[in-house]
């Protein structure tokens, strides 16, 4: 699986791990990762440790996730970004919407 999910013990926090290219090909899988749970979460972490590349449709997917998680009040963090991925996020100024580290 190129998109893996993990739930915290109390089920409040969701971690979504994306592997390989994060592009339109992952659209359905990524969406399923949070929608399949049929509920909302206190926080969502997107772990990009094993993501090699990220395109503009991936940015769109992050926006969808943020919207699903509550929009402006959402706690969505993007973790373990490589320098290339960070550059892409920086150009789009997504650090204004997401907690990126």
């Amino acid at each position: 699986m190129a998109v893996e999910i993990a739930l915290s013990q109390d089920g409040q926090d969701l971690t979504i791990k994306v592997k390989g290219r994060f592009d339109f090909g992952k659209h359905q899988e990524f969406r399923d990762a949070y929608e399949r749970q049929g509920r909302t979460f206190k926080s969502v972490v997107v772990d990009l440790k094993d993501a090699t590349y990220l395109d503009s449709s991936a940015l769109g997917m992050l926006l969808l996730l943020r919207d699903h998680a509550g929009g402006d009040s959402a706690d969505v963090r993007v973790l373990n970004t490589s320098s290339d991925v960070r550059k892409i996020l920086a150009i789009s100024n997504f650090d204004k919407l997401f907690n990126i580290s």
Partner: protein
Amino acid sequence: MVDHQPLTVLIAEDGAADRLLLARIVRNQGHAVLTAENGEEAVALFAEKRPQLVLLDALMPVMDGFEAARRIKKLAGETMVPIIFLTSLTEEEGLVRCLEAGGDDFLAKPYSPVILSAKINAMDRLRRLHATMLQQRDEIARHHNHLLNEQRVAKAVFDQVAHAGCLSAPNIRYLQSPYALFNGDLLLAAFTPTGEMHVLLGDFTGHGLPAAVGAMPLAEVFYGMTAKGYGLAETLREMNAKLKRILPVDMFCCALLLNLNFERRMVEVWNGGMPDGYLLSASGGEPLPLVSRHLPLGVLDSAQFDEQTEVWPLAPDDRLFLLSDGVVDTCDEHEQLFGVERLKQALVANRQPERLFEDVLQALERFGGQSRDDVSLLEIRAVAPQVLAPPPVVYSDSGESSPLDWSLSFEFRAQTLKRFNPLPYLMQVLQEIHGLRIQSGALHSVLNELYSNALEHGVLGLDSSLKRDASGFAAYYQERSRRLQGLQEGFIRLHLHVEPQEGGGRLIIEVEDSGKGFDVGRVLARPLVEQRLCGRGLSLIRRLSRHAEWADEGRRARVEFAWEALA
């Protein structure tokens, strides 16, 4: 034993007994049979009756099975007609000849009805599969043609909208794939009524039709508001609000917008999500990056959207170079990106300005990247305003009902000054006076100067001498933005007075502000070069109007325009 659709099977066999036996076996399996005694007969029968399957003896008189197979395959064209060779040939060479002639299978003598039946069924499955594949291929081709045609039409409609602007101006050069629209790339340029140039290079998320649909409303807002004289800030706010409203959450548009004022020699920049553009100084030196400081259009609510721009001085022959992410994101075979550094090197190494695109493209080629179809390049050169001739505005009314004797007064207070630009509205009112239309560019420029003087130096109390050099220039506009956000009090009063005169009429504009005023005599005494960079555009106002004067220690400007009666 018919468990499938009956076929018509052609049997070509020169031995009469073998032919009789084979025909019987095949008929018993429920198929219709055609028989031929040699290859020539077989080919003729095939051409006439188009059987679905052929059993062919290899060695026959007149024309052997190999030649017959070749001719039948040729006649069949794209349709798959399986050929089973009937042979007691055992040596490899003979079997290879059968395959080379187009045979699909063999049946050895003596004939076994069970094996023959199995082979016919297998070949029939293959034949059907092939037919389905052809059908699907044709369907895909049909859909594809349909799609291409739709794209062609969509592009034609869009080009009508997109090319409404001034992309063909002599100081603009661009390079874009003809299908850029379907890559989500967008390039727009238009003159404001005062002869400023607004430019947008955008990139919608995704590809194909979804990427193209957002382009239309964006272009409409861009052209509509630019033509009415709105500034970048208002246009940006409107574009963002519109895209936010109509696009799904995961779609947005990265965009870099420029407002080039050749008269005041400055360029205003807003970049949301596009790669750095560059300001290339005519006097050389490091390219100045135009960095993305904002989220793309269509992401944020209007309340959170930040339309703040940066302003840089623009000397004649300075150039602005913009590009799409297709350039820096071009990958080589090791998934290495071309990147910003290589681009900068190419920009710095460029010696002949007119070969800039070629140099960048050559650098891309040398890098060995896979060429992408979504590379957009744009270059705008700063020129004297006279070089550019904004197209005349076309008016639809006859002028018979032109109002000629009226006055109008406004007072704009702090909360309004923060967000609202009254000039496009006022210009629309003044456009009603037919005699003035011929001067509308000058009128617009003068109103613009008067209003920004009143706002920036009057209400906001900004010191124009800050604009003496490039860094001060940027600082000036940052400070302007900061003070405007914090504005609590102050006003600008605007009076328009129109009256008929012998053989025509005149317009008097009075602009009054709540600021401290200025020493008019001293400013006007400065040399022209200095006035241009940091003055208040006073000389411009005097040049463009019939009469201009300042009163109340510079707090009130009074400018007059006049016109002759129309023929």
